[in-house]
């Protein structure tokens, strides 16, 4: 069981029998009032999205999904193909089902595909993924102003803020939960 304080973006819970994913989350609390957990939820079966606010006394069952280790193979238009490396079984997820994770999916990445009664519904990624920088403005040497940031485009097309010294062709580690830059990676 989860309590309200476990709620966060990406958590999957069971509501009215169906698996739901929290696609947006905000903790709000008036200074002298009660804690409120404001969620945007998506029904993982129907795709329907809606807002719901929970209180600290609310408890939740985890969504009864199975997780299966699968490798991401390729993307074809709005379909994402994953393969079970033992059985060679392939499944497809839509762009909507992949959600924000599409920003971090590179070929051959080990993932966990989520299944509900054998239907693929979504994908979980490692907390950190290493990605190549495809496009970056060159670093103006001497530009050493501490704390500056610049946007770069990763191999997935995702645009991310990084320190100014990151150049095209370098590999960086990205937190898949927050979408933020973590560190530079040496190959």
């Amino acid at each position: 069981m989860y309590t309200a304080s476990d709620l966060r973006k990406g958590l999957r819970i069971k509501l009215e029998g169906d698996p739901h994913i929290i696609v947006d989350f905000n903790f709000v609390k008036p200074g002298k009032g009660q804690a409120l957990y404001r969620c945007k939820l998506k029904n993982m079966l129907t795709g329907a999205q809606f807002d719901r606010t929970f209180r600290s006394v609310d408890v939740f069952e985890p969504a009864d999904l199975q997780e299966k280790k699968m490798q991401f193979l390729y993307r074809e238009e709005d379909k994402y193909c994953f393969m079970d490396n033992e059985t060679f079984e392939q499944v497809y997820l839509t762009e909507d089902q992949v959600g924000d994770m599409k920003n971090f999916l590179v070929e051959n990445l080990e993932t966990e595909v989520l299944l509900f009664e054998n239907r693929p519904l979504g994908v979980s990624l490692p907390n950190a993924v290493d990605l190549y920088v495809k496009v970056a403005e060159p670093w103006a040497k001497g530009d050493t102003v501490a704390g500056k940031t610049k946007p770069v485009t990763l191999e997935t097309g995702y645009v991310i803020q990084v320190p100014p010294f990151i150049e095209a062709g370098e590999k960086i580690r990205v937190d898949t939960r927050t979408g933020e830059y973590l560190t530079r990676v040496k190959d």
Partner: protein
Amino acid sequence: MAEGDWHLTRKGANLKTRAALLEAIRRFFNLRGYLEVETPIRIPGPAPEYHIDAVPSGDWFLQTSPELCMKRLLAAGYDRIFQIARCFREGERGGLHLPEFTILEWYEAGGDYTSMMKTCEDLILFIADALSLGRTISYRDLAIDITPPWPRITVREAFASHAPVSLEEALAASSFDEILTAHVEPHLGLDRPVFLTDYPAEMASLAKLHPRDPTVAQRCELYLAGMEMANAFTELTDEEEQRRRFAREEARRRRAGKKPYPSPEAFLACLPSMPEAGGIALGVDRLVMIVTGAARIDDVVAFTPERL
């Protein structure tokens, strides 16, 4: 170039503004003859409030605000005092909440919640001058005109203007907090700062009731950019009444299975000698957000719990 901790480095501009703001706060109160005080962070127990959970520290607790100790100073004759204090509240983490955060709290003997609103205006104007912000503060896509006096609207009026139900209906349905945060707060303080005043009596366990309407308390909150910034009271000085309210809050805490707090006897005992006073607690981190344009509280402190 050594990478260092880039997430720390990139906060540099905000941390410098934060330091300048803290300096301006101290200068404002020193010029007005307030005494800066420091009271213990680790205390036997906080004021019992149903919705505020203290972090245990051994057999004691970390303060949720410096209120009880500061009122004891007030009762001992320290008439005008201020403190910039680290406070701790369990389970509070979000875009506007850190479990460890900074409160500016000040008290004025002879004051009440209306005089606190005036001092609050003066303080923010002083800070705006110190930081060369002019009379319009740009916060994200808002331009907030801080020329005083700022509008005051009662909670009842705000519900009538912005909420789908009246204040009474929200209270009857036990959905005050939900309606306030979803429908009322997003409209408050967008083009000018605003004071939301006269809260339902049960939501102000340390405030005096309104003399003309005892269903509401002499309590107000300052809002800027939809954010709750500061809470002011006309402080309750009646020991028996305070004892009854604490007992009520403590009973609610016990019924909900929350950790009991010891009764703050030394504080209760000081109330008969405490002067009539106004008091206010202002969220320093959120004020830094306003003056730096930060979207999240994470951007105005060097460290968040997740990055320790």
